[in-house]
Every structure is written in structure tokens, then in C-alpha cells.
């Protein structure tokens, strides 16, 4: 009996201690991890979509609270006018959730581009959504007031061969992003304008 109590006490104590230490460390490193992700995962995707922007879109960002969570929006300045906004949405891919950067021009209400950030899709098939620039290029110029679909579903995006699920998921994520954009447009436009160089 004594031994059993000891086992329970020791294991409980160890687990509680471990949880405490890890929770503290998680909080302590969260800010630094966010910076790293911004620099090395999201940053390249943002700069790729906003090629030709005269500012550094990774630096020029603002946050809007959505359902209690602060979401970052990045601003692109073209020809001296801050007119493009980039933000990340998530989608459910073939393997796991993935991140998708969506860029919208707030003046013309058109998609400027999309780029997959973090993903776990199959290399050579679903991963082509990130690796093959021709796939995201199809999103450029689509109107922001409609949802995006692959041709099989009556839309305009040619699915990646062998990766219909991923292609559809990217379209759904883009559509979700556009929906969020439409819902928050007044706030977004106001914030974007304030980035006049």
C-alpha cells in the first residue's frame, strides 16, 4: 500500500513539475518563435507575393482582433500607394492543416496572389502547391467577392494533377480568406491607408 501511494505521488509530482517548467518555457520563447517564423516561413512567402513592393511588407504590419485572437495583416506599397494587404489563413490539406498567405488589392478588390507557407502535403504531389509557381499564379487577378474553385467544381483553377484534395483545400482556404477580407474590409482599408510612406 505504502509503495503504491509512493508511486502515485512521485509520478504526479514529476508530471506536475514538468508541466510547470514547460508552460513557463513556452511563454518565455513564444515571442522569439513568432519572430523566427515571421522571418523564415511567412516572410519569404509574403515577399514573394508582393514582388515589386517598394516597402518591406514584413515590417509594415498591423493586427486586428478576430474572435479574441490577434491576426497580423501585412501591407504592400506599390507606386507610392499602400493598396495591398496580405494575411494568413489556414486550410485542411490532404495530410494536415496548412497555412496560406492571401494578398488582396483593397482598391480593385482583386486577389494579388496566394502562397502556401507551412504544410505537410505529399512531396511531388500536394507539395507542388508550394513548389510549383504555376499553381498559385492562377489565383492572381481573381475577384475578391467570389469564392475560388477548381475547374472540376465549376471554378477557374486547374487542379494539380494527382492532388485534387490539396488543390481544393487551397481554394477553400483562399475563399475563407476572402470572406474574412470582405467582413473586415472597412477596418482593413482604414489601417492600410495609414501606412502612407
Amino acid at each position: 500500500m505504502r509503495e503504491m501511494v509512493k508511486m502515485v505521488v512521485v509520478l504526479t509530482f514529476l508530471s506536475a513539475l514538468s508541466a510547470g517548467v514547460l508552460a513557463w518555457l513556452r511563454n518565455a520563447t513564444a515571442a522569439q518563435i513568432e519572430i523566427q517564423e515571421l522571418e523564415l516561413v511567412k516572410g519569404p512567402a509574403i515577399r514573394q507575393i508582393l514582388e515589386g513592393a517598394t516597402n518591406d511588407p514584413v515590417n509594415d504590419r498591423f493586427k486586428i482582433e478576430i474572435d479574441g485572437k490577434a491576426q497580423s495583416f501585412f501591407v504592400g506599397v506599390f507606386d507610392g500607394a499602400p493598396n495591398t494587404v496580405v494575411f494568413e489563413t489556414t486550410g485542411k490539406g490532404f495530410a494536415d492543416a496548412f497555412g496560406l498567405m492571401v494578398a488582396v488589392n483593397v482598391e480593385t478588390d482583386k486577389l494579388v496572389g496566394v502562397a502556401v507557407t507551412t504544410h505537410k502535403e505529399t512531396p511531388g504531389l500536394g507539395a507542388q502547391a508550394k513548389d510549383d509557381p504555376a499553381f498559385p499564379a492562377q489565383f492572381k487577378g481573381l475577384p475578391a467577392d467570389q469564392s475560388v474553385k477548381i475547374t472540376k467544381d465549376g471554378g477557374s483553377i486547374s487542379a494539380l494533377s494527382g492532388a485534387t484534395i490539396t488543390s481544393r483545400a487551397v481554394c477553400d482556404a483562399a475563399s475563407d480568406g476572402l470572406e474574412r477580407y470582405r467582413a473586415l474590409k472597412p477596418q482593413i482599408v482604414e489601417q492600410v491607408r495609414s501606412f502612407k510612406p
Partner: protein
Amino acid sequence: MAKTLVQEFTKGLWNEIPPFRLVLGLCPALGVTTTMENGIGMGLATTFVLVFANILVSLLRKVIPAKVRIACFIVIIATFVIVVELLMQAYAYRLFQTLGVFIPLIVVNCIVLGRAEAFAYKNGMVASTADGLGIGIGFTLSLAVLGAVREILGTGMFFGHSVFGTGYQPFTFMVQAPGAFIGLGLLLCLMNIVGRK
């Protein structure tokens, strides 16, 4: 069994060097050693976990009931693995990206659990630290050598510099999984030849 501290430390560098002498921990050894840099990164991460897990297990060896010792070891090891993972994410994000799933897999690395069970649970803190350091550094060296061999033969590059000149046709087989087995086998064979003399 009255070995000196120096012996406890140096046995990990040759006589019991993993993964060659103790053929344990093969999964990360084969999985990540496509370059020397990855090998060293993985080795150091494992060393960190090994040393701290050894210290904690030896300190708590009188408290941990024998019947739940494995569970306690796993809690301790898993805690340090998450510490490494968070720190790496915060300060060495590129390494974190390449090592990926192999970092969480240190939890089930036989070397770490093996040293906790076979050494730290029976020996004092100082000896366990020496043992952890020795085995960890030995593991790092092995991964570095295996990584270097595979990198040089498989890509013709070493730390980003060409080794054999432009005429060299990279032996890409070496950076794939079967190349890892063959590289490991040949190194083991070489060690046995040297050790026999």
C-alpha cells in the same frame, strides 16, 4: 566496477561509442545525417537531453520507485526534449526545420532511455554527468562523421564548398536512406579493423 570519472567519460568516445559500438539510436543516425551540419545539430540536441536526463535520474534514483521507473524516465526525458525543441525553434529555426520530426523522436531514442536505465539509475550524479557527456559527444562525433561522408560523396560539397571540383558527378545514392545503411556499415567495419590491431 570502480572506474574513474575520466573512464566513464572516455568510454563513450570509443569503447561504447553510439551508434557504432552500442548499435542503438539508429533511427536519427540514419535519418538526419544527410549533411555534417544536421548530424552535429542532432548530436548536440541528443547530448543536451542525455546529460540533463542522466543528472535528474541519478538525483532522483532513491525517490523513484522501481516499478514505475520507466514511466518516470520518460517524463523526465520528454520534458528535456520539449525544452530542446522550443529553444531550437526560438534560436535555431532553420535547424529545427531540417531536423523536423527527429527532435520529438529523441524521447524514444534508445540511447537516452538506455543510459538512464543502465547507468544513471545506479550511479551518482557526477558519474552520470560524465557518462551522459561522454556518450552524447560520442554520438555527436559519429553523426558528424557519418554526415560528412554522406555529404561529401552524395553531393560533392562540404559546408557549401565543392570538394572534388566541377567534374564530380554526385553519388546521390549516399544521401538517400540506403546510402545511410551502407555508410554506417562501412564505418563500423572500418572501426572494427582499426580496433583489432
